[in-house]
């Protein structure tokens, strides 16, 4: 997915249909537009309230040809609709030359197009995932709609996860203390707690998160290390050496590991060909002895970090690294030099690790997140579930909510 870079400061949004389509009944349009907004409130705390007059956040119009915004519609087919990002007002315009239909394979399905356009109204750009609602091309009528994981991750990266779901009656109430029957799991081999500096962290294609340190690796749960870890890297990824510099999994599902001047490619746990190869051969323009690497959620491109510099790598481009790179890491506001690891986590946030601390990066604001307790935070406690770890940032109390539970909250009131 891709984010435009702006979002609404509030989660309770209003909308108004100020010009209805000529071929559909108003009551039907109201219902379809309501359904289309509901797509985005399913997995977030966003709410959408229809108003019939007065100022609203998102104004919806069905218009034809030139309609005042300089981006004229082109008749049936071609462009179907467009919408403005939050920073430009969020309004959505639909080409009324289209044959808008409801629940029919004829014409153009209003619900599908409206749900897509409202994604723009909320801050999402077009996705290059063809299965995503935010892919730009109309796919034809789909009788059963299901929001793609790509879209879910996108909207949650801007507005957080849903927090107001009805919980089953036997669900224990929210508390700042962990329930006594579910203590945080501390790794049996707690060396990672004593020294939480890692070599690299990465997600597998299946969405599992691994931390590599020396000759061992740890599989992470949402708040600690899974039981039975650490294990030897040489057993988990046969042929892979210890002391890896950097790793990431690309959208092709393959995981790349870097060490010194060489890199290895794996499909799952199997080496994907004859490796190692020289970084200079497979990743032209990227230096050796890297500090960290990641696929950034903001644009899906690969970023490499070393010392005080970073490089952007786009395999589809020739050359894959633009002449304007490397650039200073200080461009990533709040991120330090000499990183150990970088990770786009499954919750949509980007994390940077250095020494025994980590930083959470706010993609949309393009700076390290502000939160309580502040970043950087101690990695041992928040990622490995270690108890009583020293905290230079303070305010970390035993049993406090985990990093990942906090993501279901509104990150900041002042965003």
């Amino acid at each position, binding site marked *: 997915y*891709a984010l*435009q*870079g702006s979002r609404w400061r509030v989660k309770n949004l209003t909308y108004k249909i100020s010009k209805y389509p000529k071929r559909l009944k108003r009551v039907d349009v109201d219902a379809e537009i309501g359904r289309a907004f509901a797509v985005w409130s399913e997995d977030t705390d966003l709410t959408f309230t229809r108003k019939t007059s007065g100022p609203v956040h998102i104004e919806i119009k069905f218009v034809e040809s030139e309609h005042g915004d300089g*981006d004229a*519609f*082109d*008749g*049936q*087919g*071609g*462009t*179907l*609709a*467009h*919408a403005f*990002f939050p920073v430009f007002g969020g309004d959505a315009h639909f080409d009324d030359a*289209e044959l808008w239909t409801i629940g029919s394979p004829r014409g*153009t399905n209003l619900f599908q*197009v409206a749900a*897509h*356009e409202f994604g*723009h109204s909320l801050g999402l*750009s*077009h996705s*290059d995932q*063809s299965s995503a609602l935010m892919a*730009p*091309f*109309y796919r034809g009528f789909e009788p059963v709609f299901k929001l793609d994981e790509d879209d879910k991750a996108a909207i949650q990266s801007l507005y957080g996860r849903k927090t107001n779901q009805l919980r089953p009656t036997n669900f224990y109430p929210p508390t700042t203390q962990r329930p006594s029957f579910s203590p945080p799991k501390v790794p049996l081999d707690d060396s990672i707690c004593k020294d939480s500096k890692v070599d690299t962290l990465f997600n597998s294609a299946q969405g599992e998160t691994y931390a590599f340190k020396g000759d061992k690796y740890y599989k992470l749960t949402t708040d600690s290390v899974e039981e039975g870890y650490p294990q030897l890297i040489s057993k988990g990824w046969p042929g892979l050496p210890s002391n890896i510099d950097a790793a990431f999994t690309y959208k092709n599902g393959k995981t790349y590991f870097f060490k010194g001047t060489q890199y290895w490619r794996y499909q799952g746990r199997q080496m994907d060909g004859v490796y190692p190869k020289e970084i200079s051969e497979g990743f032209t323009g990227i230096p050796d002895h890297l500090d960290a690497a990641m696929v950034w959620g903001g644009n899906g491109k690969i970023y490499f970090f070393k010392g005080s510099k970073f490089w952007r790598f786009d395999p*589809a*481009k*020739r050359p894959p690294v633009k002449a304007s790179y490397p650039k200073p890491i200080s*461009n990533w506001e709040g991120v330090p030099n000499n990183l150990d690891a970088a990770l786009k986590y499954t919750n949509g946030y980007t994390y940077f690790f250095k020494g025994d601390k980590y930083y959470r990066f706010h993609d949309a604001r*393009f700076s390290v997140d502000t939160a309580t307790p502040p970043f950087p935070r101690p990695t041992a406690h928040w990622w490995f579930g270690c108890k009583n770890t020293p905290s230079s940032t303070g305010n970390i109390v035993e049993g406090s909510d985990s990093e990942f539970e906090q993501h279901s909250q509104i990150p900041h009131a002042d965003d």
Partner: protein
Amino acid sequence: QAAPVSTTTQAEIYLSQFGYLPASARNPASSGLHDQQTWVSAIEEFQNFAGLNITGELDAETMKLMSLPRCGVRDRVGAGEGRSKR
């Protein structure tokens, strides 16, 4: 009826409309003035984004996809006319 994309000029307008070429390419007076490398790069970028084979050529498959009904918002936000957020 919106016309399908079947010529280089139409493709040029399309690529400019959706952020792969500078907006000036939409102006008939300046269309065709960009160099070959810019053109190939724009086609490749569109093919990559759309999940097509990256040939750098305006082939039938590429024109077919360009002719599909679609959203009018640019694929490359901030490209062409202005600076991206970063």
